[in-house]
């Protein structure tokens, strides 16, 4: 499988590449619109702030490219948040591939932000992306902002408030947690992503 990881300057995108490597797939980095557009699978990783992530995509001239992708696309963590209309983080307009705006987690007493650690997924509806993943599986999250629960949510997670943990609209998919660091649960999600019919 021909997997391209969009190199939009995220600091630890290397770990996503290694996760595919563990599945026997040599994913490659690219910031080239043509190469990304012709890939079999595209992953938008990202750790950092939404405004930086978007301005980097704009500088690289990749906004239209990502918006126009027809093949399976997976956004991971910030990469998933960028699929939405906008983010409260830096009050930035994002890719608009999924409806809704990303907002800051409210936190509160005994609810630390960033939401950091292993939390339970709550399955919303069955989907090929989550095949073989237990309904109450645990995954590793690290984030301060989160996407709302809409019709696109396949699984949610709760940290005070409930937010979208795994999403899908057609070939646009996202995981708020880090599949590359979520042991067997994460590996299964990435495998399912690779197995998806184009």
């Amino acid at each position, binding site marked *: 499988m021909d997997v391209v990881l969009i190199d939009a300057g995220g*600091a*630890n995108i*290397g*770990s996503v590449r*290694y*996760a595919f*490597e*563990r599945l026997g797939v040599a994913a490659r980095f690219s910031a080239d619109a043509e190469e990304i557009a012709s890939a079999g699978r595209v992953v938008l990783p990202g*750790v*950092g*702030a939404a405004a930086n992530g978007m301005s980097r995509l704009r500088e690289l001239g990749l906004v239209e490219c990502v918006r126009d992708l027809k093949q399976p696309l997976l956004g991971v963590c*910030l990469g998933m948040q960028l699929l939405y209309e906008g983010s409260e983080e830096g009050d930035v307009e994002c890719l608009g591939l999924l409806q809704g705006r990303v907002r800051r987690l409210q*936190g509160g007493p*005994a609810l*630390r*932000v*960033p*939401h*950091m*650690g*292993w*939390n*339970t997924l709550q399955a919303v509806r069955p989907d090929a992306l989550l095949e073989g993943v237990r309904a109450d599986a*645990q995954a*590793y999250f*690290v*984030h*301060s902002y989160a996407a709302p629960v809409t019709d696109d949510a396949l699984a949610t997670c*709760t*940290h005070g408030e409930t937010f979208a943990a795994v999403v899908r609209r057609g070939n646009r998919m996202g995981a708020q947690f*880090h599949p*590359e*660091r*979520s*042991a*067997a649960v*994460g*590996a299964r999600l990435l495998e399912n992503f690779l197995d998806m019919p184009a």
Partner: protein
Amino acid sequence: MLSRRIIPCLDVRDGRVVKGVRFRDHVDMGDIVELALRYRDEGADELVFYDITASPESRSVDRAWVERVARLIDIPFCVAGGIRSVDDARAVLHAGADKISINTPALDRPALIDELAAAFGVQCVVVGIDSLRDADGEWRVRQYTGDPTRMRALARGTLEWIAEAQARGAGEIVLNCMGSDGVRTGFDIEQLSAARAVCGVPLVASGGAGEAAHFVDVFAKADVDGALAASVFHSGDVRIPSLKKQLRQANIEVRHV
């Protein structure tokens, strides 16, 4: 529900895992990747690799083993030791670390915390604090703790430093209570509870674990998000699967493996 994290800490010296008592007399504990995989298999939720020679020797962490670990393990890990600049941090994160932890360099130049948070987001930035209670009863920060000949006591109060680090963009605090470190008589519940009261980001307890009951105590009494330990895991005195079982019995939420 968010699980409490069990975090084995691997002190790294010259590419090997070592452990000393009260930061002295280091003993070889084995190969980094071998131990990392063992802990992953046993159900560790996260790993911390602390290059104990990096800071005192004024050099940055050697990247080769970071990449080796990142390729093989599928749980998060944090790298500490000798990260002095945004470039140092970027190199370690690019090698595959999920978080970087800074201690001495943040004390030398607190603005480093702001710079790292701006560059990578607060979720990548862990501030490690070595703290000891002074004769006057105040907890104060220690620096260069990796090398007994260079270790320094600072005038900076521990709680005040936790508040400042957080305000500057620390996404997590690891509080190492040196008075209890390596002596296995339990975590410093009093100090960690005081830290908890001023810490709105995740707080990880370090220093003092000797048996499973100590972990139950620190989660139940100090409300920390994670507990870090080294020697009790390396020696096998505390096994993670049975530790998690005990935590679950005490109604403390932990990840099942």
